[in-house]
């Protein structure tokens, strides 16, 4: 697994308090990992800080799964 994926997974596990093996490529933050809509905003904030990038609101809305996040961040950073 790439470095980006590891770091994203760490944030997701810490923030949502879920088991690491639940955080799969297609795991949806809201449907599978129990996040509410405000959690997803906070995850995006945490990603921005961890990777030193800006994730605009319209892009943030497309980040629904763990895989989406890794893909977006890999391309942005």
């Amino acid at each position, binding site marked *: 697994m790439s470095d980006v994926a590891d770091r994203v997974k760490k944030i997701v596990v810490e923030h949502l308090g879920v088991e690491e093996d639940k955080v799969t490529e297609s795991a949806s933050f809201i449907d599978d990992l129990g996040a509410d809509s*405000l959690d997803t*905003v*906070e995850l995006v*904030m945490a990603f921005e800080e961890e990777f030193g990038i800006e994730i605009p609101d319209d892009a943030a809305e497309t980040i629904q799964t763990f895989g989406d996040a890794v893909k977006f961040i890999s391309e942005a950073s």
Partner: protein
Amino acid sequence: MFDLTGKTALITGASGGIGGDIARALHAAGATVALSGTREAPLQELAAELGERAHVLTCNLSDATAVEALPKQAAEVMGSVDILVNNAGITKDNLFMRMKDEEWQSVLDVNLTSTMRLCRGVLRGMMKARWGRIINISSIVGATGNPGQGNYAASKAGMVGMSKSLAYEVANRGITVNAVAPGFIATAMTDKLNDTQKDAILTQIPAGRMGDSKEIAAAVLYLASTEAAYVTGTTLHVNGGMAMI
């Protein structure tokens, strides 16, 4: 009674009577304060009176760019914004039939839209800190209406609905959002009324007197405190019984 040591507070309209006393009360409880307003001189005067832990940030709330920048500036000078008090407000009274679009718009812009922008601007820091207090200064007329103040009453009622919606969203992040609705408070604005006008108002107030701005500040101090953590989405009416709602 309430200890705000180590907390930081941004207060808009701090050059006014009520805003100044809110700043004094929060500062006296130990908070570091950022005083905002359009006129720099009275803000500097207040900062000098308070001494340490007081910063001046002038801002014209009808300027959207300046409003967006204000929470960032406050966080820069104080390290964070733990408490936001949206106190600034303007009036442009007119009979409804004569109300101009400009009178409506400017009151809504300053009183309601700038409040929304400032709330939005401080949320990120509060969410990360898992602690925040937003106190929006509404008005009794937002609940009761007042002839000649259709624009002002709409803006003040709007602040209440907005506060409640935001309170829902952030309640489980340790952030409370409340409103304080003053009744008739003795300020420079009410000093302009003549005795006949004042007497007419007093007949409507069971307490038989106008309120003191310190009594509004005390309500704000309570809502800003750690002790008020379970109070959110409410409107605290401070009006001498003028409207018991």
